[in-house]
């Protein structure tokens, strides 16, 4: 684990340096650019694109978390139980839609830019969070739920102070999965003119400049690794606080 954390720290330093002082790496990226090509992305600020990228992903994941956890809670209550099998099947079918297709279909309705990307990321984020919410809420230890019932807690009290906190680590794992997938998928949003890091990659593809492609890909990859680790740490923290440390895995 020690070597791992040094590696993460290096990744963070590299990311910050790449965003604040990209010209430091000009020599390195020049190896991948053509003789007359700029080694560092020059059609906009990398930092601004990165922040925009993170904002779109963050907003979409927040929305999908609210909706997916809400639905997961609803279909595990008696009132929504009739919807459980169908909603599970729907979430799975939704996943067979390629992201490009979702983007392309959303464009005529929402216009070019951020909106269709947001919709695609939102829809894509739903399944992992929904599945994990279901898994978390249906695999609660029966001893604990029985004890809560025996104490005379109402449905709402059980949900808010027993069920959800216990399911939180599993739900967080779903949010982590969705976020990492969305970080990559958001780059495709630039094919419909969303301001994300995909712009850098596509500029590289269009001008056959590998240095651009590498920069865009590297920043997205670093973001994904760091955010993945951040969520994992949060999951461990919640597990430890819940006293579920023994159950910690992956």
């Amino acid at each position, binding site marked *: 684990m020690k070597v791992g954390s040094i590696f993460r720290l290096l990744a963070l330093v590299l990311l910050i340096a790449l965003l604040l002082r990209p010209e430091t790496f000009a020599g390195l990226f020049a190896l991948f650019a053509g003789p007359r090509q700029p080694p560092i992305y020059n059609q906009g600020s990398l930092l601004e694109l990165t922040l925009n990228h993170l904002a779109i992903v963050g907003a979409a994941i927040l929305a999908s978390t609210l909706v997916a956890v809400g639905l997961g809670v609803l279909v595990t209550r008696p009132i929504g139980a009739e919807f459980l099998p169908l909603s599970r099947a729907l979430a799975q079918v939704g996943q*067979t839609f390629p992201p*490009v297709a979702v983007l392309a*279909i959303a464009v005529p309705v929402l216009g070019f830019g951020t909106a269709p990307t947001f919709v695609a990321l939102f829809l894509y984020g739903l399944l992992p969070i929904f599945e994990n919410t279901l898994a978390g809420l249906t695999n609660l230890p029966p001893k604990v739920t029985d004890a809560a019932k025996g104490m005379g807690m109402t449905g709402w009290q059980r949900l808010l102070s027993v069920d959800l906190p216990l399911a939180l680590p599993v739900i967080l794992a779903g949010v982590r999965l969705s976020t990492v997938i969305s970080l990559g998928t958001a780059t495709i949003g630039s094919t*419909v003119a969303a301001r994300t890091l995909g712009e850098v990659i596509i500029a590289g593809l269009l001008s056959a400049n590998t240095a651009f492609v590498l920069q865009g890909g590297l920043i*997205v990859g670093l973001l994904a690794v760091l955010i993945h680790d951040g969520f994992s740490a949060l999951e461990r923290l919640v597990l430890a606080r819940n006293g579920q440390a023994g159950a910690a895995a992956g």
Partner: protein
Amino acid sequence: MSVVRTAKAAGRPNWLVFDKLGVLIGVIAAAGVMLPFALFRANRIVAGEGRGLAEALPSVVSAVLIGALVIGFMGALFRVAPSVKLVAGVLALIGLAISIGWSARYLTPPEDTLARVSPAGGFWLLVLAFALLVADALIRLRPGPWLRITALVTVGVAVALLLWSGTWDDLSILREYANRAPAFWQEARAHLVLAFGSVAMAAFVGVPIGVLCHKLQAFRTVVLNGLNIVQTIPSIALFGLLIAPLAWVAANVPGAAALGISGIGTAPAMVALFAYSLLPLVSNTVVGLQAVPASAVDAAKGMGMSGSQRFFGIELPLAFPVILTGIRIVLVQNIGLATIAALIGGGGFGVFVFQGIGQTAMDLVLLGTVPTVALSFAAAVVLDALVELSSVRRRR
């Protein structure tokens, strides 16, 4: 999966109680009837004008369609047996499928080759509502794997019949198809080669790597961490990054170019899809092998089976359903991802999607999207059924 049976309220028969999901389906269907059914455009680029159910069809046909929709509506709303719901939903869907083609023929002025008629929001909402009904009925009926495959084939045959009979010929998406039929089949072949070829390659490489990872702990950590990092690279970047090395290989390795390896086109797309497929395959192989019960391995040892006999006779067959699940995941994923290959000249249905985005021609986008979605849906259904078949055999 406890379907809550609401108590018979006030002595009404059980079927007269409203179905909660049915109410939702009813609301969606009602909205669908209100919204325009078909969209008429003077040519493929201009904004369209919606036509409601009554004006989009000859009055007799719209009356028949409304009849079919009412049957579907009743099937959704009341607590009848799932098989009745299924029949009602299928009837409504068939009515919708035939009438949208009819509407296109009816709305297109004779001899007008530029006008386009496409399904509008109302049609899609109606399809969504009754597809929900059919899906819910199917789930409650719990069909076995063979029945699911049969249902899929039946739907495929029905769609093929509709296409062959020319019912849909006047719809805008088929007008786009008619303009570029040879290109469509060429890209279809490219798409299939990319998706299935990369998964086949990944299965040949990934499963042995998974087996090695299962045997060697140190190797497992390194390989799984490495593959995890590959997964974080965005797909368009990975496609782009492979252009340079493959162009170098094509230029410097004798015979490589003759094999069709080049910087742009199929080769980098294939390698990228292959790289994305490895992680799910390797990790599912490891998980599957680890889940083999120790008692089974011990029993095999007790019977005097050699190491390789145990592996091929016991461990691998027991892990097979999990490995197959990995193949299902990557196949569905790669059918979708292959659309992006078009960005680097790799072909596939993505060609139409990106051309359509570029020309803001929605019909062209749909020409690329619909087959992709249909393909990944069919792949998911078939492989899910295969996974179930292989695990049923295991349990016996």
